[in-house]
């Protein structure tokens, strides 16, 4: 297992494939764990977008795993080599598990630059081409606890040919073998977990082949690539995940890349995905929106029924509803959020989400956020990011709760068909 201490304890597996469990043995000393289904802490170069450690730590339950991407880090290899203590310490991250992925899930990177020997990442200074040797040298300087192997995931474009998809599977397996070989020779990477990458585009047989072949390698878990929002629709994604995970050993975790919308997360969990990248709250923040979808399924009699008039009014302003086209631009607003730039919030002195315990909701009101957004103030991003991360974490908690209590259907109804169902409650 390339020396990985990672250990998956499943407490529940649904018939369809949904899994509840804990991923243990994370970190150098193995003392960290991640509850599944779970999501990672999304960062730009180790920093949660807009947040300093002070603002970040207003959040009470942060994911134990921080994601950093090679596209951010690659151009800083030199200083990291000088530093020698790894990226985590360099970034001032002292008590978190570090996971290193290849690309930034919130950024589309140009296709056409992957070769048989290399992959490319885009940093602030442009493209950096990585051979397996360079890729592994980077991992040695970053010293993550866990990383994604090199992969050719350029199958997301419409009309990618079967030949190209097959090539991506073959290349990714070749990359993996090369990475594993270098990994095993490296003392620095002892105890570090490697995730193999399952490709295969939207072709079922290729997905199955990729999964089957990757599962033969000594990897700690699997990344499911090429299924990101915009590349396939959810019914197809569900089928492809289900088909691929059937080929994967049950005792290893599966990380679904590039999927963050709550509806897609729910359906992908049902299909067998365990881990998600936490970039969705960031995308919502960047468009000046706040997550407000309802995921509360507790049988609380106090929980008032939504005021129908208000709900209508709320929904009127949202263009796309749940079920909007899956290939839609990821910068488009979804029905899980409210647009605080909208004039109707100008004199709305309620918190973003009634009952939310995050710093933003406890301290500020919609009217203030509206003001910060229309005046382009930096604090808008800070406060929205705090709220959106908190709300998204709450959703994952609710998801685990629903799996534990056999209420996934209730949660699905609330989040999916109750689309646009707001947490707005009558005061």
């Amino acid at each position, binding site marked *: 297992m390339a020396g990985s201490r990672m250990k998956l304890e499943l407490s529940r597996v649904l018939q369809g494939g949904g899994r509840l469990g804990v991923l243990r043995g994370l970190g150098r000393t193995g003392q960290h764990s991640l509850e599944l289904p779970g999501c990672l802490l999304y960062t730009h170069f180790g920093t949660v977008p*807009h947040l300093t450690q002070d*603002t970040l730590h207003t959040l009470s339950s942060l994911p134990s795993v921080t994601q950093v991407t090679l596209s951010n880090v690659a*151009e800083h290899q030199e*200083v990291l080599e000088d530093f020698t203590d790894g990226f985590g310490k360099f970034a001032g991250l002292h008590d978190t598990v570090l996971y290193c992925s290849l690309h930034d899930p919130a950024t589309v990177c140009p296709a056409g630059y992957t070769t048989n020997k290399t992959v490319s990442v885009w940093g602030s200074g442009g493209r950096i081409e990585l051979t397996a040797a360079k890729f592994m040298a980077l991992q040695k300087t970053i010293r993550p606890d866990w990383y994604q192997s090199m992969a050719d995931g350029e199958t997301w474009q419409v009309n990618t040919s079967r030949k190209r998809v097959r090539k991506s599977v073959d290349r990714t397996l070749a990359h993996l073998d090369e990475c594993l070989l270098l990994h095993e020779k490296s003392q620095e990477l002892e105890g570090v977990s490697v995730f193999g990458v399952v490709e295969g585009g939207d072709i079922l047989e290729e997905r199955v082949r990729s999964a089957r072949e990757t599962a033969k390698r000594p990897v700690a878990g699997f990344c499911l690539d090429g299924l990101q929002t915009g590349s396939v629709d959810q019914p197809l994604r569900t089928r492809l995940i289900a088909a691929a995970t059937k080929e994967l050993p049950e005792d290893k975790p599966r990380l679904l890349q590039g999927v963050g919308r709550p509806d897609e997360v729910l359906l992908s969990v049902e299909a067998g995905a365990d881990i998600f990248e936490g970039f969705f709250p960031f995308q919502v923040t960047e468009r000046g929106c706040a997550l407000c979808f309802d995921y509360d399924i507790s049988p609380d009699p106090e929980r008032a029924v939504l005021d129908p008039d208000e709900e209508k009014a709320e929904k009127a302003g949202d263009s796309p509803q749940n079920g909007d086209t899956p290939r839609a631009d990821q910068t488009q607003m979804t029905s899980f959020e409210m647009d605080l730039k909208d004039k109707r919030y100008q004199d709305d002195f309620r918190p973003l989400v009634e009952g939310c315990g995050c710093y933003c909701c406890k301290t500020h009101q919609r009217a203030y956020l509206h003001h910060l957004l*229309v005046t382009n*103030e930096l604090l808008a991003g*800070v406060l929205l990011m705090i709220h959106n991360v908190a709300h998204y974490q709450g959703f994952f908690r609710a998801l685990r709760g629903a799996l534990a209590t056999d209420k996934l259907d209730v949660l699905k109804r609330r989040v999916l068909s109750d689309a646009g169902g707001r947490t707005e409650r009558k005061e």
Partner: protein
Amino acid sequence: MQCGDDTTTSENSMSLKKTLSVASPLTLRIVAECPVTKARACELVLPHGAVNTPVFMPVGTQGTMKGITVDQLDALGCRICLGNTYHLGMRPGPDLIEKARGLHGFMNWKRNLLTDSGGFQMVSLVELSEVTEEGVKFKSPYDGKEILLSPEKSISIQNSLGSDIMMQLDDVVSSTVTGPRVEEAMHRSIRWLDRCIAANKNPDKQNLFAIIQGGLNAELRKACLDEMTRRDVPGFAIGGLSGGEEKDDFWRMVTLSTDHLPREKPRYLMGVGYAVDLVVCVALGCDMFDCVFPTRTARFGSALVPWGSLQVKQKQYAKDLQPIDPDCQCPTCKRHSRAYLHALFKSDTAAMHHITIHNISYQLTLMRSVRQSIVDGRFPDFIRTFMKRLFPSRDQYPSWAVDALASVNVTLE
């Protein structure tokens, strides 16, 4: 005028103090006075708590401190910050802020706030402005509508904002302008002060400060001081400076003003925030300062340090693993290296927040050290050490600072 006239004759400081503590929501307790310079350490008690002076007040123009939360600002020890009446009057507007229980409620800031009159921005930001006896006329940059900012209007907005200290509307002329326009502006500012005093709806909750004008002309300044100090306002600002004038003129106008301002009332030097200027002007007797410089320069990656500034984005820091200032206790310096911040500037806006926090911390820490040295009776020594650290050699000391300090008996070796 009505509340100005009945107390102006009281020359006796004791009775004046008494009158003030009853009449205005401000008390100034002089904790220590430097036996050498004109510096003083005071405790200024305002409706939202006590402020130790000398104090630097960071500027939160639109009801927010540039990416910093109110809790972060509070944790840095900030007890008073600024909001800009012009910006807030435009967006979100006084009515909305009043509904939000004032600017304090709107931004949820529990400490003190000072608001300017809006006049300065009008003259500096808005091209189409015309000053008449009525007020400042300008076209709204948002809808092109013609708006008149009169003294009454300025105070009405500031009453809605609910700031602890409001500034009178003054007739601002660039400090480089000379001639009759300066005199006209000075006299008009006095008339507008009286209109502002009369317009203040909350004299029991909100302090109105007068602004001394008179350009760089000592006689006009003196005339303005004579007139304005006859009014019973809770505090005074020294205005019309920090606008590109010669530093030699600047410090002479400052020291002239403090010479004639009453000892019992706070003195606020507007628009001053460079470290040297702060230290020198404290020596000249000023208590309060504000400036956008520390927070603005932070967003360009310029970190303030005891030896000047450090441009984090410059290549030379790409591999520098030290904190910005190894002696600094701010959250940024305690956690992050120059190299990390350098790299972060390429990835996320949080890099700016880190420097903003550091720079506010630098300003507030500087003023705390200044104050402590005054209390300990060693301010002249503090100045000498401060200057030595800031400038590599004696011949790089700015001559205006040397002269200004010499005028208050501090010689720099």
